[in-house]
């Protein structure tokens, strides 16, 4: 990395489920490992101790931090900073360019699918295709770690497809049924 002065990269972030826009700015790269940043309006010195694709160890104004990068897509970045998980929604034109080039795409969640939030085995199924269900009705019962957990419908609607059979194992985020 070359040493650059009069250098300016700005990025905007938003913490997931929060409204406030946050901005970070690289004002200066003083050396291979030293940066002058402007974070939420305040200048701070950053010195990199170690950096890999998985994470970064750095001093920010004389305090050590360790950030791991868990996930990074066009829209979101999830970090674990000193053990605290933070997910950002990203708002940087620059970053989008980077990601378009690197071929990473975001996926759309469907409103139709009822997904399992836990892994487990299907103990019983309480509905059939064509049934009317109300939000909160039990759709099926899963067993995991010796417990039986009732899975409830997330909306009012009609069961369109069954993706499970009794005795099946399902993974976290697997679609159980589709409701329209």
């Amino acid at each position: 990395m070359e040493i650059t002065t009069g250098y300016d990269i700005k990025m905007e972030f938003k913490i997931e489920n929060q409204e406030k826009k946050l901005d970070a700015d690289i004002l200066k790269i003083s050396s291979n490992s030293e940066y002058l940043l402007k974070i939420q309006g305040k200048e701070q010195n950053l010195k990199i101790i170690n950096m890999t694709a998985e994470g970064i160890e750095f001093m920010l104004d004389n305090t050590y931090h360790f950030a791991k990068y868990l996930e990074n897509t066009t829209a979101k970045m999830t970090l674990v900073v000193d053990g605290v998980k933070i997910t950002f929604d990203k708002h940087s034109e620059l970053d989008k360019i980077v990601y378009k080039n690197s071929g990473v795409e975001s996926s759309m969640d469907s409103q139709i699918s009822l997904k399992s939030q836990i892994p487990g085995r299907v103990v019983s199924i309480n509905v059939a295709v064509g049934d009317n269900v109300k939000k909160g009705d039990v759709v099926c019962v899963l067993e995991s770690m010796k417990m039986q957990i009732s899975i409830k419908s997330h909306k009012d609607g009609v069961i369109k497809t069954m993706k499970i059979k009794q005795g099946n194992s399902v993974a976290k985020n697997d679609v159980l049924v589709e409701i329209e």
Partner: protein
Amino acid sequence: MIEKILIANRGEIAIRVIKTCQSLGIKSVAVYSDEDINSRHVKMSSEAYHIGQASSSQSYLNMEKIVEVALKSGADAIHPGYGFLSENADFADLCEKKKLNFIGPSGKSMRLCGDKMLCKDAMAKAKVPTVPGSPGIVEEVEKALDIAHEIGYPVLLKSVFGGGGRGIRLVHDEKELRQAFDLASGESKAAFGKSALFVEKFLPKIRHIEFQLARDTHGNTVHIFERECSIQRRHQKLIEMSPSPVVDQKTRDEIGQLAVKAAIAVDYRNVGTAEFLRLDDGAFYFIEINARLQVEHPVTELVSGLDLVKLQIDIANGKEIPFKQKDLKVNGCAIECRINAEDTFLDFAPSTGLISDVNIPSGPGVRVDTYLFSGCTVSPYYDSLMGKLITWGESFEESRERMRIALSDFYIEGVETAIPLYKTILDSKEFIKGDLSTDFLDRFKILDRLREDMSKEISEKTDAALAAGIIHSEFLKNKIKTQKDHGVGWKSQLGMT
């Protein structure tokens, strides 16, 4: 004398038992299912044998297979840990028949402890007070309704086969009781092949306080103080401590003697636990004897200085307990937090998968019993307890401070845990002043506070996160630059001046 012990268990408790075997120069034999070949208990044992498929019924509950391996490996004793076969009287009998020293109570005594109704009778004879409720098993829902009507709602519907809070349901009215009866019946049949339910008076704002027991084959019986286990979720313990903030030496002596009486009443052998409920007015009711080593035994070890597994082995060897009741003094205070693979915000639903990274805390007064290592897997086939974090301090305050820091140092990547919840509980003024009860989480709306604490933690780390975020983008761009183009500067490539 025992020279080789087969440990009929897995996870952190198998490791715990192996540690004591190592220090006593006793050889350890591990068993493992298809799911567990990469587990720490397999790696730490002197020998390890495959016993079957992932499902417990095919492996850790397969009595015949386990006894076969014990005999083949030349083990002379079996340690059952907790859960699985630990309270299975048939297994204890089978071991005895095959001349394997079962490290625990006799099958007969275990049957008495395990049958809540027979046990209740025995306690009545021994003058140990128990909770009001149905005098025996209730087979018909209509009978349950009658009793509930008699003692008054709300009532608890419990399974005779329950334990560790499993199979207990709180019901407020007739409709709920009917529903719960069906569900509980089903669960019990699925797990144990039969159902046997009973009804008990629901007591509000209770504490769960239990006494550690030890009884040798010579009839010497002692209690090793109490453990307060009132911080629970869904009737399962989350945080335990010894001593209890509401038990003074006089109460300890008095209820401890009730616990000793209870042990004698069921002709108990080895170490076990007498569980009590304590009401706000100071009254104690016996609930049951857990006929095994408890999950939470380390807090007792830290305040007594004893190695309870060593004591178990000594008793199994026919030795006398090497101390008297009067020799035992509570030294300091110990707290345990159970580290379960569970999602606090999904009503503690299981969370399983690959543990891609883990940091285990350490330091003065910190003990961690765990099967975790970076790269291990938390399996959906077994229970959610990944480990236990235990801290000792000269005082409650010191053990709490040490726990607070150790929790912050405990990092587990890959599954959800209650570690953030424990931080909130440990910081709460109610916990600090010892205002505990089994409905602690609801009573003080702890989950709401947890949400606040978590957003505060995020605020504190936002600057560092933003810094890491923007540097990461730099890093990525440089990588892309290096890969794509060696002649043109990356800034111009990205449309910058």
